[in-house]
């Protein structure tokens, strides 16, 4: 049993060096070759992915935002969403942002109430920033904060998909998108 594993480790050591070289070459290729972009992101095998992402993010926003707002006795959700280019011609995400008004309470209480409601609905708490609440579910992330610049009862939120490459056909769809309001957000 020990012999084959030791042998494979020796092979692995050489592979590591080879992979290191490949990794460096990959970095170079990425920087040098537009063909890399074309071959990786120019195929049309996954057309419709952008629409799927948009529908999925919108649906999650329509579910999560009313939950969060309801948890703090809030109202007046106002949000718009559009496509955003993470890296030119390489990756995009569908994102949105907006505000809602909450009933007066402490920020800590409201963060706890929203977290409780969203986690109960299956969202994972991934908060890393003090004073924010960040939750995720699949390819959807929502961030909420009470930003004093907006006034004491206004909450600001943003939501988004991950940055991801899309096909040429999806790229055409994305570039035509001018964004717009998200409907159906009333709690």
């Amino acid at each position, binding site marked *: 049993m020990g012999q084959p594993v030791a042998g*494979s480790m020796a092979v692995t050591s050489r592979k590591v060096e080879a992979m290191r070289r490949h990794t*460096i070459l990959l970095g170079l290729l990425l*920087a040098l070759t537009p063909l890399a972009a074309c071959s990786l992101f120019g195929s049309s095998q996954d057309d419709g992915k952008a629409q799927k992402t948009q529908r999925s993010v919108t649906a999650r926003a329509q579910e999560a935002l009313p939950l969060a707002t309801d948890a703090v006795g809030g109202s007046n959700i106002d949000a718009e969403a559009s496509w*955003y280019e993470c890296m030119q011609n390489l*990756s995009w995400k569908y994102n949105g942002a907006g505000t809602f008004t909450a009933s007066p309470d402490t920020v800590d209480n409201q963060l706890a109430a929203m977290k409780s409601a969203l986690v109960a609905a299956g969202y994972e708490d991934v908060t890393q*920033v003090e004073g924010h609440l960040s939750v995720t579910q699949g390819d959807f992330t929502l961030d909420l904060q009470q930003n004093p*610049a907006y006034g004491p009862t206004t909450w600001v939120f943003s939501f988004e998909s991950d940055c991801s490459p899309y096909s040429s056909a999806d790229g055409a769809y994305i570039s035509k998108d001018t964004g717009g309001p998200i409907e159906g957000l009333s709690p």
Partner: protein
Amino acid sequence: MRTIAVPDWLPREPEPQVQDAASAVLTDVRAAASAVSDVSEWARTNGAPSDFTGNAAEAADHAVTRFAVDTDAVSTALERGALAIDEFLTQMRQRRTEYADLMERRQLLNDDRDALVQRIETVTDDQIEALQTEAASLRQRFESYYQGLQTWRECVQTDEDAAIRGLNAVDELAEGLAAANSDGRPDTDALREQLGRLGSNTDAVNAWWNGLSEAARNALLISDPDLIGNTNGVPTGDRDEANRSSVQRDIEYLLGLRASGHELSASEQRWLENAQAIEDSIVLADKPPYNALDIDVNVVAYQPQAFGGDGIAAVAYGDPDTADNTAVFVPGIMQDGTTIDDRGADALSLYQESVGNQNGSVATIAWIGYDSPNFNPTSMPAGLLDGGDAAHTLTEANAEAGGHALSSFVDGLNSTHEGGAASSNLTVIGHSYGSTTSAHAAADGLAADNLVLIGSPGAGGGVSDVSGLHMPQGHVYVGAADHDPVTWLGGEIPINMATGFGLGPTHLGNLGLGEDPSQHDFGAHNFAVDSGQTFHGPGGLVTTGFMDNHVSYFEGTNPALANMADIVSGQGDQVADTGGRTQDARDYLDDWVGSEAQHHVVDPIVDGAVQTYEGVRDGAVQTYEGVRDGAVQTYEGVREGANDAIDRGQDAWDSLWPDRWP
């Protein structure tokens, strides 16, 4: 019965709504004036074609010259009109300030009136006289308010009349011709020459501009919007006016071409995309949630033809000439004028987070003012790789040139700040290749208070540690995500090429672009960031590593944004120092490669070995279990047989044994 006369509650005066509309009209008029000025200039310099001779040439020359004179008259008329509107807007800004003061007075008066009414409701006889005196004083203050309001209304009317008179004075061709020939018309050629002599001295440019008459400034905004809009040292508001009219002029021209059936060439299409990206970056501030913040947006650079059509663009959210805190965000590779809207979104995120700190006013600027390496083939010199100028990512050449441009831009911001450079906390934030560019600027003497390097492939400029960046001590900040592969490139990662002929490899340079600034030994203040998601394989390296982890520093979920906002708003001392990396950047790369080896090579082998072992083990277990089961069965058979024998013996014994002893 004794009376206390309380004045009537003061109604709210409608707010003058002319500002936005008049600003839009001014931009329209300036755009039209610039376009006509260009045509006039062309006609004046061309005259009759050179191959025309005799009467035909004379006739053509006359016709073109006449056309030049007429268009010049139109241009002058529009210039005068723009001046009248601009003056009206200046007056209106003053009137809005006065209006705000008046409404504040009104609120105070109404509050005092309400308080008085409340006291009157419970008044006793001995208090009546005092309250009557108080009511009389209040009536006087109300009267004074009404007089102030009336004066203000008359001023608004006077301003409007003056603007209309100014427009009426040049609404006929003859008036335009007269204006064009008047002695008082600013000589824009001479003004341009004066500006040219000032070079890159932004303080001198600022002093010169502020010393010009309103008419001269207006004339330059129309004759040379591209120059004025992109000259460091010209105040932000004037750059904005110039650039907005250029953007509008270009969009109208290009959409007009398209509407006339002309198919836009690739470079024209890119030109249009540059202009439209500026428009989009302006609109962003009017969308939720930013619309609630009433952000003053300023276009501080617009050169769509720069760098082979990649374009230069910069948009400020907030007014850097008055802001207590200003940030200049310098993006990295794959950026050009067409991406100013998305980088503007990053600057807006930073703006929102920074104003939330409530430590003074804020302006954040997305600055694409250098030739960021990208994949645009049209911006690449012929004969080189068809990879656009992305190959420049491998060298610091663009970063070095960009560093000079950045320094000049920052100098301009310092010169135009109304309170002087010392009253503004200015931060430069470089991301990716933009961090190399920013480091180059710093190494050469960047006049900023803070430098932030995020997702850096190396601090360029040949610096070995933070001292080479010449920033105030403790004011170089670094954010590097563990799973951002671009941050694995700094430091010594040699690129060697085999030369053959037994000569050994040739060292071509390092993979990164200078020292890794996130190293503890580099000496910067390292702040916490989201470390990003782990990934596997070349696909994951590209899609998750480069395209997600590397570009997430401005997301609200990422501590990087809140930390950068603290730095921008002058609270850098509140940002915790994580100490930086103690492993070389290349170790991160090696670790990832090692983990890839583990993931792709070792794990499958170990899995295989385990599978084999498990097979053997299972077989052995099966055999053992078979043996055991057999043995057990045998034993149980023996045992059962023995038990049976014992039972039977017992029975026999029992049958022999009497039930009870006698």
